[in-house]
């Protein structure tokens, strides 16, 4: 108990850090993932190959390595001087986007063939079919896998703490450096993460119930 009360400001900052890096990288992952999924199902071969390469590469790269890439390679290519928070969110968002892409793609596959055929027969183009007919229906079956992807993202955000982003793992490290016993520190950090993941799974359950349609 003491370890929390004595270091509450740091814990609060860490908790807020975890929440904000989770939120920011979730948005990045969602946008990129849907875009890449669109590429993977598009009729244009180069985009399809790009999408496949994107997913294969990112899914088979350890996240820690991706963090290293974003902290040491990306500044050499694009911008230098970005804050660790931005770089960390980008690394996490890019990594998760490949999983989002696969979830969306398999969601698209669950939409009955006739839906797209009907859309085409009334003269919709490919982007229209995707945007107005297929994706809204795919959303429903994508929600359960997305929920577990975002929970995994929350857990993965711990790695950002090792790359000097202020979040809960950083607090754990700080406390053990200050000589506190590891068990109470572990329990508080675990509780912090549990709160975030419970909220996420609750939100998704709400969303799922909202979008429930008898088929």
């Amino acid at each position, binding site marked *: 108990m003491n370890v929390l009360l004595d270091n509450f400001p740091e814990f609060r900052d860490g908790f807020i850090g975890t929440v904000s890096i989770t939120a920011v990288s979730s948005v990045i992952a969602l946008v990129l993932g849907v875009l890449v999924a669109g590429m993977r199902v598009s009729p244009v071969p180069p985009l399809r190959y790009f999408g496949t390469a994107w997913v294969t590469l990112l899914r088979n790269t350890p996240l820690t390595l991706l963090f290293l890439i974003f902290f040491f390679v990306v500044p050499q290519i694009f911008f230098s001087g970005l804050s660790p928070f931005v770089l960390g969110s980008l690394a996490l968002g890019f990594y998760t986007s490949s999983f989002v892409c696969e979830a969306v793609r398999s969601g698209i596959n*669950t939409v009955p063939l006739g839906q797209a055929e009907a859309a085409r027969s009334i003269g919709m183009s490919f982007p229209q079919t995707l945007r107005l007919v297929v994706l809204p229906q795919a959303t429903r079956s994508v929600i359960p896998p997305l929920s577990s992807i975002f929970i995994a993202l929350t857990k993965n955000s711990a790695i950002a703490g090792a790359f000097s982003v202020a979040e809960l793992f950083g607090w754990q490290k700080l406390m053990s450096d200050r000589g506190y016993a590891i068990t109470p520190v572990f329990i508080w950090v675990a509780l912090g993460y549990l709160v975030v993941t419970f909220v996420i799974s609750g939100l998704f359950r709400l969303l799922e119930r909202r979008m429930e349609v008898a088929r």
Partner: protein
Amino acid sequence: MSASVLYDAPGPKATVRNRIYAVVGGAAIVALIVFALKRLSDTGNLAPEMWDIFNYSGIRQNIADAVLATLKVFGLAAVGSVLLGVLLAVGRLSDHRPVRLVATTFIELFRSIPLLITIYAIWVGFLTDYSMWALALGLSVYNGCVQAEVLRAGINSVPRGQSEAAYALGMSKTQVMLGVLMPQAVRAMLPTIISQLVVTLKDTSLGYIILYPELLQTARLIASNTQVNGQYPYVSTIVVVGTIYVTMCLLLSALATWIERRGRRAKTGLVPAPAGGAAAPEATVTVPAARTGGAGGAEGAPAAGTGAAQEAPGSEGDAGTVGKP
């Protein structure tokens, strides 16, 4: 092909349009790559000297040792996690309430705590001088919980008649579990189990943070201890090490896909789970729901849809091979 769901076979106009998109899209991608390469060469990262460091036998030896260290932890964690997974899965399906409770709590707890937090706590709290064992233990605990859920799903997917028949023969509960249910569960879930091992392999890179000299930690040491043209060769080291990681993971994923295809051809009645499990460990648990939910439960229907559609990216051509003997 899944692609035909969304668009027709293109006519002459669409073919031309698609070709234009292809050229524009391809050009954009190529431009991005060229830009990245140009920036890298401007900052001196593509200079031959930067890559020459990998010709030194010392650095090669370092990398070889690091790969070995990574594989050693992976081997320990793989064995540990599968054993723990079997134990926890059996515990979760036990008839004794306390055993069930303990196993469920253990699984739920360690599955929802970030792996890094667990590894770090084990390292700082108990095994400070043995980072390899801390890493292997942490990986075993977390992945064991995931494997337990996978195995439980596999056991539940074995037709009821199997255990009924075994009991009718007079087998004990242990015999039924170990002799009848577990082998079939493992066989059905092998692709998913191996996909989870890919996740385990990737997660060995967390050793970087607890200073275990595995591949990534060694890469950082090489890059920060060498200076070429007044610069640290981070880019070249990361490219080399990244290639090694991706290759190892791809080989393991390929094994999972191969086993899945092979299992599909066999006529055992039990269909192996798709190897796409690496996508989202938790999501794989819905796979057998496709089978149990087939009765038409409203809850099972959406899960069944995603489970069936969760194909490994490489298995698009499968539709043609499924029917073949």
